[in-house]
């Protein structure tokens, strides 16, 4: 019964902390905090779990990492948490619209709500972003522009039209191109991959096949599974070097294509750090030490966050390509 032990462990950690903690400042150990990922079944979020575990290691806390395997179970899952006496819930919304009213309930119940990858949530205290998604999208597009010396057509892929951060990312890239690269034509409609590598592969392949005039010079992928999918298509069709891929992914998922140069830019932010940042922000919020336009969290890449509305934005994205991909730091 891990459930029952929750409360008790919470009890005794409290006591021992008040003992050793001389500055009245409370820490994560004094609160019951949960970190909820979009879904548990992605390498991406297993990395986040890693981060939470490390955090608990380091600070002797018992922050919970829990969620539903499929994204569309998230709202119901969080709803279940509300009734279980948490001080703060840190969540990476899979589906903002679905989650928002549930989070409203959470706030009614006096729970602090911290989000990630979801700047548009209404019912939250704060959202912490590794970076500005629009900028991030622009960043990827910039790379494609550079690789294709600014001429040709670019296709974008998103996991689902219903996934906000993906759509924003694509939008950011498109807007950047319209401003800065007149000859770079970005398709109006992104390809939808259902966040499934196989689907991404066949749809990209289809698009490339249809493109008999070789106008396509770049592919921008928003979802982690799409980058290898697209890479596989490009590689099989023998279009390496002609079609440039820049996308979000992880070494564990897309490593080989980065190494052989099919994927020329792979960007990501470290979910582990993001997770820790959420926890720290939650604690800060509970302690009421937030609100100024800038905030510094003891987490790499989140030292100087800038506040805009309810969104704290850092500068924590990591670029990986052929040259630096063997760095252990990125090996997850």
């Amino acid at each position, binding site marked *: 019964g891990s459930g*029952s032990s929750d409360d008790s462990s919470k009890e005794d950690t409290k006591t021992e902390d008040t003992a050793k903690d001389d500055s009245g400042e409370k820490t994560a150990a004094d609160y019951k905090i949960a970190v909820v990922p979009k879904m*548990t079944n992605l390498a991406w979020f297993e990395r986040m779990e890693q981060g939470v575990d490390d955090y608990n290691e380091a600070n002797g806390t018992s922050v919970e990492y829990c969620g539903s395997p499929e994204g569309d179970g998230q709202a119901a899952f969080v709803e*279940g948490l509300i009734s*279980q*006496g948490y001080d703060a819930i840190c969540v990476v919304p899979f589906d903002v619209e679905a989650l*928002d009213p549930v989070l409203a309930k959470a706030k009614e119940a006096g729970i602090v709500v911290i989000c990630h990858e979801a700047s548009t949530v209404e019912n939250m205290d704060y959202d912490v972003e590794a970076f500005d998604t629009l900028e991030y999208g622009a960043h990827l597009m910039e790379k494609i522009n550079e690789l294709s010396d600014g001429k040709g057509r670019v296709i974008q892929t998103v996991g689902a039209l219903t996934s906000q951060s993906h759509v924003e990312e694509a939008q950011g890239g498109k807007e950047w191109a319209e401003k800065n690269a007149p000859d770079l034509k970005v398709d109006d409609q992104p390809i939808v991959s259902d966040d499934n590598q196989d689907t991404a592969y066949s749809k990209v392949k289809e698009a490339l096949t249809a493109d008999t005039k070789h106008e396509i010079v770049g592919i921008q992928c928003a979802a982690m599974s799409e980058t290898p999918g697209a890479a596989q298509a490009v590689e099989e069709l023998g279009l390496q070097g002609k079609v440039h891929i820049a996308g979000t992914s992880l070494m564990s998922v897309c490593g080989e294509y980065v190494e052989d140069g099919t994927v020329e830019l792979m960007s990501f932010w470290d979910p582990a750090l993001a997770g820790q940042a959420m926890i720290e922000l939650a604690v800060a919020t509970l302690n009421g030490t937030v609100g100024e336009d800038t905030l510094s969290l003891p987490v790499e890449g989140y030292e100087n966050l800038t506040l805009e509305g309810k969104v704290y934005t850092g500068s924590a994205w990591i670029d990986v390509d052929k040259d630096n991909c063997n760095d252990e730091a990125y090996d997850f």
Partner: protein
Amino acid sequence: MKLLKKIDHNILSLLGMYAVVLIAMAILNPSTYYSTLNIKSWFYLFPEYGILTFGMMLCMISGGIDLSLVGIANLVGVVASYMMVNIGGGKECGMGMIIGAIIVGLIIGVLCGAFNGFLIGFLHIPPMLVTLCGLQLYTGIAMIVTTGPGITGVPQSYINIANGTIAGIPHTLPMFIIVTLVMSFLLKSTTYGQKVYFLGSNEVASKYSGINNFKVIMTTYMISGFLGAISGILTSSHYGSGKSNYNTSYTLLSLLIVVLGGVHPDGGKGKVIGVTLAIVLLQLISSAFSVLRIDTVITDLVYGLILIAVLVITNIAAKRATKVKTK
């Protein structure tokens, strides 16, 4: 022993499950599980899939199946939200418009059901396929209306339907109870209800008994669509938005519940009480899992095991009771 024989074996095994879960939680973590807050959270959740499940049940008793319910629900939610947001003016949408949206939603649900019913009853296409295609079509239309992202900004009073409470009890609970009572009346005490059972047990004989199969099938799938629509209204109200891909897991869930509830997949058999028990049982279990912080991937596993277990137990028990081997 005689008394036990009287009660349906399936219901017995379900009650057994109840005992197991409730006692287990009383030992493991009563403080959280039996807290009013937690119990309240159940009432928000199970009516949503419960009402939709009754649609599945009705169709299965009639010898069919309705895999399109989730599609209908989402389409209804999307259209209703669309009306309130894009026509009614979003947050400031007037009461009239809200009611209008709900009514239109319910009508759409019934129409979807009618479409299923027509293909099944008139063109005699196997229900499983019709409703499978239905799922695609209705989801597709919802997708076309939304072009992807959910339609947000519905008025507060609409959101209150699924999230509000009266005297501390969520609105959804009385709704669910009403639907349950109506369903059991419909099946037990109306001509239509009996006809559904006849249709389910032998289509030909029911035709030769002067029952208008087409009419009964149409009614059945329209009612099912109607229930799907209600569930769709609740969902979109609950989430404060309409979207094409909410609750996709409910299709299998409802199928599982209906069978757990003792409805025979070949039709002709099934009681509302059994299904109701099954609906609540699954809520109790999933809540127990979330309280015990058991990894949710295990839920699939457990649901599957329960399903098989109940079926096996029921079969064996039934064989014991009446050894009449019908070959």
